[in-house]
């Protein structure tokens, strides 16, 4: 009875809560009730994550509280499954909880169509909560086969959410996303089979203690990398992302770009830098960095050429993901200590970048969704004079764009600044050039949209078809988007909130 009271019970509750929410929202009939239950669940999840965070970083001094484990069903690591959490995982869980809260409130109004025959919320809410459960379970899991099952839940729930609208473009994008997801999961499962054959254990901590650079480990690492690169949509394998994120409903594409894509990056970072660190060759890490740089350039170019707003934001996700992969070459030099866990200056910079990008990208997608909901289309060329009708959404778009580019007040600037410092310290200055160039290209495609939106309509009123807003947008929806954008600015000012958290649990 006693261990129920101490705080490590919070770990399974973070997975159980969305599961209970999913069951309730499946069974309930009226969509009003479903929405209110969802908002209540999102609030409790946010409070639990905050409590977990304060407990983890608060008692950061003593060793064992930093790297907290919870063995489910009480059987212990090799036999049973352990939930493990360290600083980086706690940061990601906090990000998930915050985003879930804002996006749940937004979805409550986005899907509120009393007169429509089809009640999409009957399907949306259960899938939404199953997706959130999968994300929480993945960040908490300490067992490589368990990670496979969570990857599967996230994949299937995300595909079903993308296919929610039933329009032909959404269904085709969802089917392609599903095939890619299944392919990635199968490569990962084959790697799990290889690792179990070689080391006989499924637990991450035990694996990192016993891993050494043999042929099998290297083959497993290659398989895991190809599988997860497919799911993270790094440049050569990114073909499915723009259409999937572009044709999904606004809150879905927000959570997809801000979180789902990052889950497989988190796994790659965990496996390359922590668990299978000895098997990670320097050339492999460098190759990932080069792919990241290619992603930055290619994504930005495609974003410049996109004619639809949501597609442009989706391509910008492909570009910003490239930044994340700069972690691998930069984390290289001081990562020789075995089992040092996932920490160090490069990891905290990337952790900060993930939070900044997640908030900015979610805000951008919500703003794009608002524009689409009001104007009925999101052709960039026809968005002339948008500022007159939707000033708040445009302001959100501008602030989020500033964070993507890395302009000073925003969290994006701080994360790029930290990344630059790490690149200079690691004496790999060429990454600095790529970081700055990426910022420049981001500026080009963001200002392209702002420029069109702010030009007043009157001088070419006769050529453009008068695009007037079609229907009224509930103000709460643009407020949600604005809140996320302001989050990037707030985070920009007090950086130590995240930085000291990521360093928790480094001397495990």
């Amino acid at each position, binding site marked *: 009875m006693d261990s129920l009271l101490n705080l490590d019970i919070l770990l399974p509750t973070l997975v159980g809560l969305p599961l209970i929410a999913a069951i309730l929202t*499946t069974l309930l009939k009226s969509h009003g009730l479903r929405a209110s239950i969802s908002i209540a669940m999102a609030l409790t999840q946010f409070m639990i994550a905050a409590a977990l965070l304060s407990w983890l970083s608060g008692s950061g001094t003593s060793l064992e509280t930093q790297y907290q484990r919870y063995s489910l069903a009480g059987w212990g690591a090799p036999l049973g499954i352990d939930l493990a959490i360290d600083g980086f995982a706690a940061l990601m869980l906090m990000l998930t909880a915050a985003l879930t809260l804002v996006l749940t409130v937004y979805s409550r109004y986005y899907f509120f169509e009393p007169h429509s025959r089809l009640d999409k919320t009957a399907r949306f809410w259960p899938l939404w909560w*199953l997706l959130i459960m999968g994300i929480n379970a993945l960040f908490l899991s300490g067992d490589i086969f368990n990670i496979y099952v969570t990857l599967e839940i996230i994949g299937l729930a995300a595909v079903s959410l993308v296919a929610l609208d039933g329009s032909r473009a*959404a269904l085709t994008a969802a089917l392609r996303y599903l095939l890619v997801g299944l392919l990635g999961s199968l490569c990962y499962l084959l790697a799990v089979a290889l690792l179990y054959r070689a080391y006989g254990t499924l637990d991450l901590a035990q694996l990192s203690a016993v891993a050494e650079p043999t042929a099998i480990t290297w083959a497993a690492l290659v398989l895991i990398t190809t599988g997860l690169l497919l799911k993270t949509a790094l440049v050569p394998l990114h073909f499915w992302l723009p259409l999937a994120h572009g044709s999904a409903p606004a809150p879905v594409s927000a959570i997809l770009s801000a979180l789902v894509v990052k889950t497989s990056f988190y796994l790659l970072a965990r496996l390359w830098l922590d668990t299978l660190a000895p098997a990670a060759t320097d050339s492999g890490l460098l190759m990932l960095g080069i792919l990241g740089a290619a992603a930055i350039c290619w994504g930005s170019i495609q974003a410049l050429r996109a004619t639809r707003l949501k597609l442009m934001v989706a391509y910008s996700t492909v570009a910003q993901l490239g930044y994340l992969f700069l972690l691998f070459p930069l984390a290289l030099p001081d990562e020789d200590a075995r089992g040092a866990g996932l920490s160090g200056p490069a990891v905290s910079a990337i952790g900060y970048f993930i939070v900044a990008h997640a908030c900015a990208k979610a805000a951008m997608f919500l703003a794009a969704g608002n524009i689409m909901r009001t104007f009925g289309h999101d052709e960039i060329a026809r968005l002339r004079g948008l500022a007159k009708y939707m000033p708040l959404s445009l302001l959100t778009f501008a602030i989020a764009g500033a964070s993507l580019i890395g302009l000073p007040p925003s969290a994006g600037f701080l994360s790029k600044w930290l990344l630059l410092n790490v690149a200079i310290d690691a004496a790999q200055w060429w990454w600095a050039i790529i970081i700055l160039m990426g910022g420049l290209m981001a500026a080009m495609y963001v200002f392209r949209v702002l420029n069109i939106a702010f030009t007043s309509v009157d001088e070419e009123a006769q050529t453009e078809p008068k695009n007037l807003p079609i229907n009224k947008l509930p103000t709460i929806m643009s407020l949600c988007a604005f809140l996320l954008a302001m989050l990037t600015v707030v985070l920009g000012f007090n950086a130590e909130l995240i930085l000291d958290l990521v360093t928790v649990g480094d001397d495990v």
Partner: protein
Amino acid sequence: MFQTPDFKNNSYENELPFATRVLCAIVIGALGFGLIAALILTENISSSLPALVQQKLTQSGVQNPVTAVLLNFRSYDTLLEIGVLLTVAVAMLPNANFNSDINPDMPGGNRSSGRLVSVVNSAAGNPPLEAFLRWLIPMIIVMAGYMLWTGTALPGGAFQSGALLAGAGVLAQLSGRIQFCFTSTTAKLLLTIGLITFVMVAIGVATTTGVVLQYPLELAAPLILLVESAATLSIAAILLLSYNTLATQVFESPSEHSTFEHSAFDKQPSDVTETSAPNETLQSQTAEDPKS
């Protein structure tokens, strides 16, 4: 490789050119041989887990080691597993228009009757099949029950008996006399019963033993059987739902997605015309006149 899923019969216009296919085959072959060599050469260390499972088997409450691993040692995996099944079930639920009273003439099965299983005495049924099924389906159900019960000692268990029950349901549906309607409340309950029981057992057990999913020693066997039978019911219902939806596939009335004038799917991703939101906005304005 993945441009557009096409349905023309064996049309080859968007198939990869011969050269790339041969190249793919060679690359995959080479990697395969490399992997085979690596696997065969490194001798496979015998992991400590099987001995651990044997040693702890007595405390797990069941004799069959696989069921012990599935439902006691790694029960968290099975919980997420049933979550995966629920995800697919929700995604494939027929469009449950709760406000179906607005237009009772819903295309597709008879949604109005709220009952899960409704016998349809359509004339088309063929008597020999029905006679055979009237005899076979009860036997399958008994077999599934036996499979579930022996799962604790002999090979068998929740997934196998759930699949058997789903097979019986598919047979019943194929006979044309039985129609399942999965938007009824009993169907919803049946779909989620497995997950509800598992979560309730997990939390209930945590209050006594203090650790989530840890069964008290003496209660392990009955609890596992309870969770297993609930899982069997929901697995059977979910697999039957997926067959039912695929077999009675009816696309939403076209008025739901008022197809635009340029609705033909065009290849360039940049100017994909049909996106999600405009349907809703335009659909809410245009008068609801089902097209076909």
